[in-house]
C-alpha cells in the first residue's frame, strides 16, 4: 500500500486542534473539557506525524515519532491530574448543595496506613 498523503492528515490534525479548542472554551462539564484537551493534543500529534511522513526517505523521520510518544505520555499524566482535581472540585460543589456531606472533609486528609512503612 502506498504512503498516505501527509497533507490530508496534517489538515485533520489541525481540525482536531480547532475542534478541541472550541469545545474546551464552550463546554462547561469538566469531563468534556478534559476530553477536549486530549483531542487538541491528538491534533498536534497528528500534525507532527504527518510532517514526519513528509521526510519519508527511506523511512519516516523518527525524531517526531519520539516526540509524540513523549507527548502521549505527558497527555495521559495531565489527564490523570486533571481528573483528580476535577473530582475534588465536583465533590466540593456537590457537598455545598446538599446539607449532609457524603464524606467529611477530614476523611480526605486522614492519616494513611502506609505512613508506618
Amino acid at each position, binding site marked *: 500500500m502506498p504512503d498516505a498523503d501527509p497533507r490530508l492528515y496534517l489538515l485533520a490534525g489541525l481540525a482536531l*486542534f480547532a475542534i478541541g*479548542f472550541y469545545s*474546551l472554551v464552550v463546554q462547561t462539564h*469538566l469531563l468534556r*473539557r478534559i476530553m477536549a*484537551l486530549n483531542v*487538541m*493534543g491528538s*491534533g*498536534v500529534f497528528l*500534525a*507532527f506525524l504527518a*510532517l514526519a511522513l*513528509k*521526510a519519508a526517505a527511506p523511512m519516516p523521520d523518527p*525524531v*517526531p515519532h519520539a*516526540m509524540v510518544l*513523549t*507527548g502521549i505520555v*505527558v497527555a495521559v*499524566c*495531565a489527564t490523570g*491530574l*486533571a481528573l483528580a*482535581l*476535577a473530582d*475534588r*472540585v465536583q465533590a*466540593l460543589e456537590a457537598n*455545598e448543595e446538599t446539607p449532609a456531606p457524603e464524606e467529611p472533609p*477530614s476523611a*480526605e*486528609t*486522614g*492519616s494513611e496506613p502506609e*505512613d508506618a512503612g
Partner: protein
Amino acid sequence: MSGLILGPLVAAALAFTFPKRGRGMAWAAAGVVGIAVLSLIRAVLGGGVQSHRVSGWGAPLGIDLRADGLAVLLLALTALIAVAVTGYAAPYLRAADSPEARHRERYFWPLLLFLWTALNALFLSRDLFNLYVALELLGFAAVALVALEGKGDALRAALRYLFVSLSASLFYLLGVALVYGQCATVDLALVAERAPRGPALTVALALMTGGLIAKAALFPLHFWLPPAHANAPAPVSALLSALVVKGAFYLLLRLWFEALPVFHTPAAARLFGMLGAAAILWGSINALTQSRLKLLIAYSTVAQLGYLFLVFPLMTGRDGRFGAWCGGLLLLGAHACAKTAMFLVAGNILRAAGHDRIRELAGIAQVLPVSAFALGLAGVSLVGLPPSGGFAGKWLLLSAGLREGQWWVAAVILVGSLLAAAYIMRVMTRAFAPAVPGTWVRPVPPIMEGTALALALVAVGMGLAGSWFVELLWLGGPWP
C-alpha cells in the same frame, strides 16, 4: 550544569519515597544547586557562555544546554528564592500537628523540588521540544502546589490554572511542530539560522507566543493568576509570582530575540508594549480595590509583569537596546525578591491574625515589627524608590524610552509607580495604625519573619549591585 537538573530531580524522587526526609532532601538539593550555580557563575564570568551537549550528540540530533548571562542570572535568582522558601516553609507547614498539616508537608517537598527542577531545566535548555517538557513539568508542579491548600477556592483556582496551562502548552507545541516542519530542527540557534520569513513561521511564532503569554499572565490573559496566587499556601504564592510566570516570560525573550529575531518588527513590538501598559494600569487599579492582602499582592504581580513586556518595544532601536534589556531583567529580579517577601509577610499575617483582610490589619507594626519592616522595604522596591532594584530597573527602562523617543513608556512607568505607591500606602497606613486588642492570636517563628526581611533587603540592595548585573547580562545577549 547537570547538577542543576539531576540534584533536585533525584531529591524529589527520594523525598517522595521517604516522606519523613522531605525537608532534608530539599536542603541537600539546595546544597548541590548552590554549588553548581556558584561554579557556573564563575565559569561564565571567567570563560564566557558555557554550553553542554547532552548525550554528546549536539544539535540538531541531540539536545544542547547553554548558560549565558541571562540564564545564569535566572538560575541564581531561582536558587536564592527557593532556598528562602525552603527555610520559610518548614515552620509554616508545621503550624499545627493535624493530619492535614502532615499531609501537606509530606507532599510539599517533592512538589517544590519538581518545581525547582523544571525551572532549572527551562533556563538551561536550548531545544524547543525539550522546553515543552520542562514547561509541562513546571505547570504540573505549580498546579499541584496550589491545590495543596485543599480549600474550595484553591481547588477551583488550581483547576482553572491547569486548564489554562495545558491548553497554552498545546498551542506552544503546535508551534513547535510547525517550526520543525519548516526548519527540520528544534534547536534555538539552528532555527535562527534556517528561519525564512513566511506564513509557517509567522503562525508558529504566534501560536507559541499566545501560549506563553497565557502562561506569563500578560493582560488580557491574566484572569487565572489572581485566584491561583492568592489562594495558594504563602510559600507557594511566593514561588509562583516570583518565578513560575517569569519562566514563560524568559522563554518569550528566547523566542523573540534568539530563535526568530527576524519577526521582531516594530508593529509586533508595539503590540507587546500596549499589552504591557494595559497590564500595568489594569493590575494596579485592581490592586487598589482589593479587600484581601494576598489578592492585592497578586494583582500587583499582574501589573509588575506588564513592565517586563515594555522591553519588547524598547528593543527595536539600537540606542536603548542594552539599557532596556538590563532594565527589564533587573526589574524582574527585584520584583521576584520583593514579591516573595510580600507573600511571605502575608503568610505571617495570616498565621498571626487568621485572616488577611486589609481593613483589619491595624497593629501589624507593633505585633510583627520585622514583617512590617519587610513589607515596607518590598514596597519601596515595587514603587521604584532609590536605591532599590525596582528603581534601577525602572530608571534604565525610562532612559531607554527617552533615548528611543518613546515618550509613552515614560508616562506609563510614572503612572504605574504612582498607583503602586497608592496601593502600598493603603496597606502601610493600616499596618501602622494602633492595634485593636484581641485581633492578634498566634505568635510567628522568627525564621518566618527573617526570610521575608532578607529577601526584601536583597530587593532593595539590588540597585547597588547594578553593575554586576550589567556585566553578567552582556554575556551572550542578543547583540552583535
